[in-house]
């Protein structure tokens, strides 16, 4: 496998983890988060600091998970105080705050970021396999959660918090849990990204990246793990396969997003479902 293919597969794996984890917050539990890049970044910086100080892969991954989820739980508590549209704005604010904060901190490398992060010792292929392993585990975990009583309650909270409360469901606890889990996984993706690049700057975790992750979730089908996985793979590979898409990435993603919301609000997942129903019906 060429170095290029290894790097593409690694990015695909990281984007799958990010999109699936965002889907757990926004798709399963209905909490619109447009600042997923901040949690990804928190994990990446935590892992970078851990690797620089200890060179322990396990410790770095743990630090990434904890950093992502701690920031996520704080935002989760904020979600208890604001309605959905204001939550979206709050999470955008968190993303900008994160970038602004990191850029001004000398201990985080400021504008220059953190470079010279020690290698994991697994090599590029080893890193790729580790990333794909975690991506697979994240998909399996997401499918499990959606089938569990937790996923069942998430759907109720996402559809109508008030009605969920009349069935004894503490909507606040579930929202914080969704943020805690989803952002821990985003932090994990950040850690894996750090291992992959060995160099991080704040720009990699900006608001535009968060919107691209949301585009993957919406295009795949909000709430559908399989749809989001396919969309995140497709939308990561598309710019690599077609030069035009790479040159006009934001335009293409934005256009797709508008088309899906206008013509197929359920995304790829709903399109496939409708197709299956139609084929079975004929």
């Amino acid at each position: 496998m060429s170095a290029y293919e290894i790097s593409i597969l690694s990015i695909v794996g990281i984007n799958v983890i990010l999109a699936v984890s965002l889907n757990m917050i926004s798709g399963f539990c209905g909490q619109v988060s447009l600042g997923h890049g901040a949690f990804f970044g928190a994990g990446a910086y935590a892992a970078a600091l851990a690797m620089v100080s200890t060179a322990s892969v396990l410790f770095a991954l743990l630090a990434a998970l904890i950093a992502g989820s701690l920031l996520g739980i704080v935002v989760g508590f904020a979600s208890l105080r604001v309605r959905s549209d204001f939550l979206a704005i709050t999470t955008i604010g968190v993303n900008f705050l994160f970038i602004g904060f990191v850029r001004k901190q000398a201990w985080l490398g400021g504008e220059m970021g953190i470079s010279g992060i020690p290698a994991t010792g697994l090599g590029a292929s080893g890193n790729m396999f580790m990333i794909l392993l975690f991506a697979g585990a994240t998909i399996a975990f997401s499918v499990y959660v959606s089938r569990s009583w937790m996923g069942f309650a998430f759907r109720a909270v996402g559809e109508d918090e008030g009605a969920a409360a009349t069935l004894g469901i503490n909507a606040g606890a579930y929202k914080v849990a969704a943020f805690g889990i989803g952002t821990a996984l985003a932090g994990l993706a950040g850690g894996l990204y750090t291992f992959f690049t060995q160099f991080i700057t704040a720009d990699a975790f900006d608001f535009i990246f968060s919107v691209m992750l949301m585009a993957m979730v919406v295009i795949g089908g909000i709430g559908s793990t399989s749809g989001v996985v396919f969309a995140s793979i497709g939308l990561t590979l598309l710019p690599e396969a077609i030069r035009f898409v790479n040159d006009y990435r934001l335009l293409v993603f934005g256009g797709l997003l508008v088309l899906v919301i206008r013509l197929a609000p359920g995304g790829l997942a709903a399109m496939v479902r409708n197709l299956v129903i139609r084929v079975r019906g004929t």
Partner: protein
Amino acid sequence: MSAALQLDDVAIRFGGVQAVAGVSFAIEEGDFVGLIGPNGAGKTTLIKIVAGLLRPERGKITLGGIDVTDDATAARVRRGLALTHQIVRPFREMTVLDNVVLGVGIHRTASPFRAMLHVDRRRESERAAHILSLVGMAGTERKLAGSLPLGQMKRLEVARALAVDPKIILLDEPLAGLNHTEASRQVETISDVQKRGITVILVEHNLEEVMRICRRLIVLNGGLVIGDGEPREVMADPVVHDAYVGGGMATHA
């Protein structure tokens, strides 16, 4: 023995309007109480306070002797209170069965992490199907809740309330918007609920049905209790009669 529900001097004000002005009453276990009053009497506000959707500015609410004044709705439901909404609120994207299963599984959803550890829903599904048959909705299990006509949605509200295995059930205008046949069927269902030993508080504008099925009437006007007792005696009270005539509320009789 403690009352199923007790209110002590409950009051709430919205700006300059005293919506509920110091309401006190106790409801015994197994009772069937109608809460009535003209428009603006404070019924819906009081129901929202009891359900935990509004916090009173003063007063105390106890369920089975336990002070729940500071508890949120979900915590009160876990203490045995169930409620139906005046405007139906089913989970429209879920099946009828899943709407009820979620209530039956109240012990599974007590905390997110306990909920994460369990997947199996077979026992809850069987119980939910039984509850649906009790309210006359057998055969609708696989339909999307959002596709049901209003009459069935109102019955689904009752089924969901029963699903949480309540000791006391608050029904907020369960007959509103139903035609005569649907209303009769709904009244039968509500009567059956009470016969199962569940305390029922019925807020309803259809006075004919309230008089027919309730054992006790509590009449509110201007945020105060102006009548409380056996339905015929309460309605014969001149103060209650004046409030009705003044409030423009008419019986369906």
